[in-house]
């Protein structure tokens, strides 16, 4: 593995390896001394062209816990606001000796360009590009699901306890909300499919992207039906991305008539929570619009694992940085890609 650009590139073995490594990383994070010397002397650049708090902080924490040097670069207050191109920014980073570049960009495909244009030799990690992919988010979601749901016997196999080496075979996951604008949904559909889970996307027709029939998942327009009929093991609520809806007034662009109607049809509240099996976990990639796609009752319920997702994000990103940076890069490069 040289870069992490899309979950569609990951094989089942790759994904399980990342999750297993993340499990070991998570174990080290309960120690008093959380810092490991593993990536001493390596430099990780966080290249953020789009606003982000938790993803950037999560990557920064992960890199620092592995003793890498971290350089934060945000488009605001940098040469980008003076009109510098991605290429020139990349060449600058290359000259500074970056070993890994974590990039978030508003344009889908920008990380792919950075990885393959030959501007930088660094490993490229996609931290969210446009409406395309957000692979580390999907990996942390899969990690969270595996931790809670695999090994408790729901998936048929009655192996209790350690989920190391296992995939998510047989789990049913409902991904609910603004699928159209969500790179989290795209990344999750591919990764969860690779790991053997069944994904059902639930959204109003206006928030389902064109071409969704080619994705390896089911699509429904009715949340209550899905919750009652498929009895999902995990329900993942997506944020309604109103900043991506043009004319984001009270009507949320023209995607749904008004927020109240959206909440009534697609929001997770106490009543819908009661429809779910006892073991079902509630997930949200954050930041949440409380009262819109998820009610406070659902967000704060004991089955919500939203805060744990954030903690798992650090472990998963440590694992990704470890797997990309720790080995002999020249041998890896010869072997892959």
């Amino acid at each position: 593995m040289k870069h992490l650009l899309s979950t569609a590139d990951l094989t089942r073995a790759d994904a399980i390896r990342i999750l297993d490594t993340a499990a070991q990383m998570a174990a080290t994070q309960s120690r008093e001394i959380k810092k490991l010397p593993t990536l001493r002397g390596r430099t990780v650049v966080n290249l953020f062209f789009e606003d982000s708090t938790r993803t950037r902080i999560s990557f920064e924490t992960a890199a620092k816990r592995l003793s890498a040097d971290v350089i934060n670069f945000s488009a605001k207050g940098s040469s980008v606001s003076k009109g510098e191109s991605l290429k020139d920014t990349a060449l600058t980073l290359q000259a500074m000796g970056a070993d890994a570049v974590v990039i978030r960009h508003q344009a889908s495909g920008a990380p792919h360009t950075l990885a393959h244009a030959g501007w930088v030799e660094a490993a490229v990690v996609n931290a969210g590009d446009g409406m395309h992919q957000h692979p580390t988010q999907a990996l942390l979601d899969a990690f969270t699901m595996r931790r809670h749901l695999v090994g408790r016997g729901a998936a048929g196999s009655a192996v209790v306890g350690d989920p190391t080496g296992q995939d998510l075979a047989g789990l049913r996951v409902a991904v609910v909300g603004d699928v159209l604008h969500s790179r989290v949904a795209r990344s999750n559909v591919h990764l969860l499919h690779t790991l053997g889970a069944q994904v059902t996307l639930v959204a109003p027709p206006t928030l389902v992207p064109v071409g969704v029939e080619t994705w390896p998942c089911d699509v429904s327009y009715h949340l209550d039906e899905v919750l009652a009929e498929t009895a999902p093991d995990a329900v993942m609520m997506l944020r309604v991305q109103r900043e991506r809806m043009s004319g984001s007034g009270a009507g949320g662009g023209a995607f749904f008539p008004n927020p109240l109607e959206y909440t009534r049809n697609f929001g997770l509240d106490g009543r819908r929570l009661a429809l779910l099996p006892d073991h079902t976990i509630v997930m949200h990639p954050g930041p949440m619009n409380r009262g819109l796609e998820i009610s406070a009752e659902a967000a704060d319920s004991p089955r919500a694992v939203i805060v744990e997702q954030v903690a798992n994000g650090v472990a998963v990103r440590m694992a990704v940085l470890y797997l990309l940076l720790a080995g002999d890069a020249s041998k890896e490069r010869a072997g892959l890609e």
Partner: protein
Amino acid sequence: MSSGPAVPSSEPTVTPEDTSDGVTTVLGEAEIARALTRIAHEVVERNKGARDLVLLGIPTRGVPLAERLAERLATIEPGLVPADVVGELDVTMYRDDLHKHPVRTIGATRLPASGIDGKIVVLVDDVLFSGRTIRAALDAISDIGRPRAVQLAALVDRGHRELPIRPDYVGKNLPTSLSERVSVRLVETDGTPDGAAGSGQAVTDAVLISQRPTSTSSEGTR
């Protein structure tokens, strides 16, 4: 010793007397058992009992060795419960040669419930060679606690130390040349649980010496 038909497998299984393909068995099952028993007695003698002892095995083969050592300690010191003193310590993330090899898989670190603070930690590894693994282990230990003392037990000391590290307990001193490779085979780690090779040949404990295939061996500091 049942010497079944030659089985095509990645690792040639040899009977102790077999030296045909340059593999020599230096310690057999009985010798390994005797060495561990002796080490157990030495540990008890040196520490005047088994109080506050913690045995940390270094994966992969240090872990079953630590478990066997604990079982022997329990027979010498009846109050000791093996499960309460054995742990495993993965040192992958503390190695100084990570960038020279393809990415290594990180193993588990599992400490006894009592922790290691104030204890006497005995590190257990199969082969002591350059000493770099032990250096990494000492760093790992200092990140998870502060033991009263750290001691080192190795089944085989093959020499060629690159760091000022010496073992406290040695199963066998084995002077080797750098062109040789020392490997340890244990039933727990190298046995085939479901007879993967298809033959009924049982894997037995052994310490083997073979010639390194060519100059560039991707094996670690064995």
